C-alpha cells in the first residue's frame, strides 16, 4: 500500500441557496490515521465528506489526495481510492441481491467476473455476511444493511475509508460488531459521527467542526474530555468519560 495523505487547503463551500457550509478548513490526514470528525448537526461534517469525494466541488480552496487534486478530471482515480459509505445504507443498496450490490463497483471497473467474485466474497467475509449474499438488500435488518453497504465499499479495495454516521440507528450489539470491524481495518479512516464513544474507542485523532470551521484538532481523549469545548460546539462529554451515574466516581482510564 502506498502512502495516502489527504490535504484540505483553505476549503470553502457555499450551498447554491447561499448557506455557507464549510468556511476555510485546512488540515492534513496522514497515512493510516483513524480520524473522527465530530460536530453538531449542520456543522458541515457531511459536506466535508461530499467535497472529499467530489460529489460537491469547493467554491474556494482545494483538496489533494496523495498529491492529486480533487477535480472533475481526477474523480475516477480519487473515487477508486476513497470508499464512502453513506449515512443511510438504503441510498447505497439498489441492486436486487446483496451480491450484485457489492459487485456493482468492481464490475464498473471492468474486472473479470472471477476477480469480481473473489473481491465480493472477500468483502462479504470481512464484514461477516457471506450467508446473506443472495438476499434482497431491502429485506435485511439495519445492522445487516450497514454491513452490506460497507462491504460494497470494501469490494472496491479503497485505500481510504470514509464513513458517514456508521452507528446511526444500530442496536447495541450491531454497533459493537461494527466497532470491532472498524477497529480491524488498517485503512486510513475518516468517520463523521455523533457517536463520541465510538471516536474515543477507535480513532486516534478527533477533528471538531463548528460552523464550517475546525474548532479543535487533537487526540480524542484531550478533545472529548474538554467540557468547555464540547459545550461550545453543541456536543457533550462522551458517556464513557462521564462520572458514574450511581456512585459519582470518575471513569477508570
Amino acid at each position: 500500500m502506498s502512502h495516502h495523505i489527504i490535504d484540505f487547503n483553505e476549503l470553502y463551500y457555499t450551498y447554491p441557496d447561499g448557506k455557507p457550509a464549510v468556511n476555510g478548513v485546512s488540515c492534513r490526514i496522514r497515512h493510516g490515521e483513524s480520524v473522527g470528525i465530530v460536530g453538531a448537526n449542520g456543522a458541515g461534517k457531511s459536506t466535508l465528506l461530499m467535497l472529499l469525494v467530489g460529489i460537491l466541488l469547493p467554491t474556494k480552496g482545494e483538496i489533494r489526495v496523495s498529491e492529486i487534486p480533487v477535480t472533475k478530471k481526477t474523480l475516477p482515480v480519487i473515487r477508486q481510492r476513497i470508499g464512502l459509505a453513506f449515512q443511510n445504507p438504503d441510498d447505497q443498496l439498489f441492486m436486487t441481491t446483496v451480491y450484485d450490490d457489492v459487485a456493482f463497483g468492481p464490475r464498473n471497473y471492468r474486472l473479470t467476473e472471477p476477480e469480481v467474485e473473489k473481491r465480493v466474497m472477500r468483502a462479504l467475509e470481512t464484514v461477516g455476511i457471506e450467508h446473506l449474499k443472495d438476499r434482497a438488500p431491502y429485506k435485511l435488518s439495519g445492522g445487516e444493511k450497514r454491513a452490506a453497504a460497507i462491504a460494497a465499499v470494501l469490494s472496491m479495495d479503497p485505500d481510504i475509508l470514509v464513513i458517514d454516521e456508521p452507528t446511526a440507528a444500530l442496536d447495541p450489539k450491531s454497533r459493537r460488531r461494527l466497532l470491532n470491524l472498524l477497529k480491524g481495518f488498517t485503512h486510513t479512516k475518516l468517520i463523521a459521527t455523533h457517536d463520541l464513544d465510538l471516536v474515543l474507542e477507535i480513532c486516534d485523532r478527533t477533528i471538531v467542526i463548528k460552523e464550517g470551521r475546525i474548532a479543535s484538532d487533537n487526540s480524542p481523549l484531550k478533545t472529548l474530555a474538554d467540557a468547555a469545548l464540547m459545550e461550545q460546539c453543541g456536543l457533550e462529554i462522551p458517556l464513557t468519560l462521564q462520572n458514574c451515574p450511581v456512585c459519582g466516581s470518575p471513569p477508570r482510564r
Partner: protein
Amino acid sequence: MSNITDSIYKMRFLDETADKRTPVHDLHPLSKLLVTIAYVTVVVSYGKYDVSKLLPLVFYPVVILFSAEIPLLPLLKRTLAVMPLVIGIGVFNPVFDRETIAVIFGLPISGGWISFISLLLKCVLTVLSALLLVATTGMERISFALRMLFVPRIFVMQLMLTYRFISVLLEEAANIWNSYTLRAPRQKGISHQVWGPLLGQMLMRTYDRAQRVYQAMVLRGFNGEYNTGSAKQLLLKDFLYLASWVAFFAAARHYNIPLFIGSILTGVGK
C-alpha cells in the same frame, strides 16, 4: 395503511422470480428477448376478427409459466392492471360494429363483440409475455440483451433507472402516507387541501433520494453503462429455443391450427 408498503413488497415479486434457477431462467437473455419480440409481433399482426387463429398462441405463455415455475395468480393480477385501459378502448366496438359475422349455438354474434374479445385476448397475451420475460430474465439482464441488440445506451439506462425509480417513489409515498395518517386518524384518505404540498413534497423527496442513489452509483465507478456481469455466451440451446419458438409462431400465423386440428378430428370422426 399498509397498502403502499404492501405494494412495495409485491413489486419486488418480479425481481425475486427472476432469480430462480430453472431451464428457462438459464437461457441467454437475448434469445428470450427475441422470442418475446417475435411473439408480440405475431400476436398483434392478426386481423381484428381472427380470434380462433389467436388461440394456439396461448400455448407459449402456458409453457413458459409451467417450465419456469412462476406462480400464475400474481402474474395475472399484474396483467389485469392494464385491462381497464384496453376495455376503455374496445368497449365501443360492440356498439358500432353490429354486423353479425358468426352464429354460435343459434346466438348471433356481432363483429364488434368478436373484435372486442380479440383485443382483450391480444392485450392479455402481449402483457403476459412481457411480464414473463421480466420474471424469467430480470431487468438487468434484459437491458444487457438490449445493449447486445445495439439499442442506444441512453434508452437502456432510461429504462433501467425508471424501473428502479418506481420503488424509490413508492417508498417515499409510503413514508408520507404513513406520517399523514398517523396524525389524521379520523380522516378517510387525504384531504384535498394538502394534495398540492404533499405531491410537491413527494416529488422533492424522491428527487433528493434519487440524487443520493445516483451519487452512490457514481462513487462506485458508474459511468452510464450498467454492468450486470452476465456476459454469458450464446449456446446451442439458446439458438434452439429461439428457432423452435419462432417456427411455432410462424406456423401458427401461417396455418389456422384450430381449423386444421378440427378438420383432422372431424375427418377421423367420419
